């Protein structure tokens, strides 16, 4: 295996003008990620992006987004129709081939547009039982919350305390809010927003030349549970636990974990599946409960885990999720050496 590190991470500013194109959200973001390590688009050997046409109802929208990466003269690139964290995984695999040393990963999504995310995400469900019911992701997360509370004895107050820890809002005030789908309140669900982010991966010694503290990918793995939520114990995430084991989360102390939890019960399920000790700093960035730029949320978690290494931490975990009720999970262990 080649040693591969994240050397740079950049995000589009949250205050985009109304109607801003995704290409123009991405272009300066990609430039910023490369600029930070003194690179240009010409230095990139492989490009991989993540986005999802269902969000805005466009077709082949990744083609326009690719213009932000600079696709002329022709470049070597690929795309995943999912969170950019999986694009990062593909880029990591591509760098393992050994013939290129630099990869650019980016993703963008405009979850604030189009239909509501609750409506759009019903299309990720099976077409026989759940999609016709219109089982939206908030309702499914409410079932997950019930399952978590029934098995672990946690309460709605525990869910509110997760939000309070990220936002400094008062727990009692949070609990006085009405339900959206019981037992979840508005604050239990991260607001869908627009976003764009870019990550630069570099293999071998070159990473050390580019950046003071590269975040070395000590382990990365992704696994899936059965698609149909009714076949699972929603209070657990075996795929996260397996990915964590394969990625080697338990081989050392984890200082910070950035978890792709967009609903409060998910954070409890994930912390348990990853085997995180109580002292681990979970989602110091605020995480997906503060803002959920769909298909950028997971890549952002890995980017935030990189920032923690750059800031002096030694071992962090970035996690990304996809599908109904945490169906697929990706775990990335980062180390500063």
């Amino acid at each position, binding site marked *: 295996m080649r040693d591969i590190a994240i050397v740079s991470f950049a995000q589009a500013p949250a205050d985009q*003008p*109304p*109607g*801003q*194109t995704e*290409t*123009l959200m991405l*272009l*300066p973001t990609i*430039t910023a990620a490369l600029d930070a390590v003194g690179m240009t*688009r010409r230095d990139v050997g492989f490009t991989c992006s993540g986005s999802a046409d269902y969000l*805005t*109802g466009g077709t082949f929208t990744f083609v326009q987004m690719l*213009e*932000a*990466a*600079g*696709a*002329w003269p022709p470049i070597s690139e690929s795309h995943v129709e999912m969170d950019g964290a999986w694009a990062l995984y593909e880029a990591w695999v591509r760098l393992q081939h050994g013939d290129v040393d630099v990869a650019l990963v980016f993703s963008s999504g*405009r979850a604030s*547009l*189009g*239909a509501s995310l609750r*409506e*759009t995400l019903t*299309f990720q469900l099976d*077409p*026989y039982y759940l*999609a*016709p019911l219109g089982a939206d992701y908030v309702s499914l997360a409410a079932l997950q919350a019930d399952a978590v509370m029934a098995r672990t004895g946690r309460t709605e107050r525990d869910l509110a305390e997760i939000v309070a820890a990220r936002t400094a809002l008062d727990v009692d005030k949070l609990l006085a809010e009405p339900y959206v789908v019981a037992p979840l309140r508005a604050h239990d669900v991260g607001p869908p927003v627009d976003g764009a982010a870019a990550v630069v991966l570099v293999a071998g010694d070159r990473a050390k030349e580019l950046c003071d503290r590269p975040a070395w990918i000590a382990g990365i793995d992704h696994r899936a549970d059965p698609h149909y939520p009714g076949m699972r114990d929603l209070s657990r995430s075996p795929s996260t636990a397996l990915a964590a084991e394969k990625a080697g989360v338990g081989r050392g102390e984890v200082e910070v974990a950035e978890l792709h939890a967009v609903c409060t019960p998910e954070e409890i399920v994930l912390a348990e599946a990853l085997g995180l000790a109580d002292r681990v700093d979970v989602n110091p960035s605020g995480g997906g409960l503060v803002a959920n730029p769909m298909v950028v949320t997971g890549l952002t978690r890995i980017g935030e885990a990189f920032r923690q290494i750059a800031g002096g931490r030694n071992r962090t975990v970035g996690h990304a999720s996809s599908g109904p009720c945490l169906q697929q999970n990706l775990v990335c262990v980062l180390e500063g050496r």
Partner: protein
Amino acid sequence: MAEPVQFMSHFTTVEYALPDPSPLNVHFAEELAKGRIIGHKCPACGMVYMPPRGYCPLCVVETTAKDEVEVADRGTITTFSVITPLQYQGQEETADYVQATILLDGSDTTIMVAHLDGIAIADVHSGLRVRAVWAPEAERGGATGSLARQMGLGSAVTSWEATGEADVPREHFAEHIV
């Protein structure tokens, strides 16, 4: 005994709200409503993009208001197809017509147009010089109305007519044929 279920129908709809037009689309439409066609000239390579995109995809640099240039409302047919409409539902055309690609003077990007005024199909050819027939100002579709969401020049221009100028040799537009 009832027949086993082999197929089931599942009708589903999702309604997408149209996004706001980008600030650049709105500006382009405002100018178009005034009868002015604008583009952005890349400060690095000099290519002119019409409508402006806010960046040059070749150089991957952003372009802004300072890169704005005016593009002529006349140009050259680069390529064309003769369309014979099939009468499927929603088809409004009944007779053969020409879909032409036009390179406006001062632009490096082409637009597709379907209405050629007073030019017989047999007379349409690559290199033919044409000019825009503008809709009356009140009928162009305001910038805040539909114009900012339309392709190309949208409802601002109703058709194109021959200018009578000499044909442009192919080598002058060969680089612009897709």
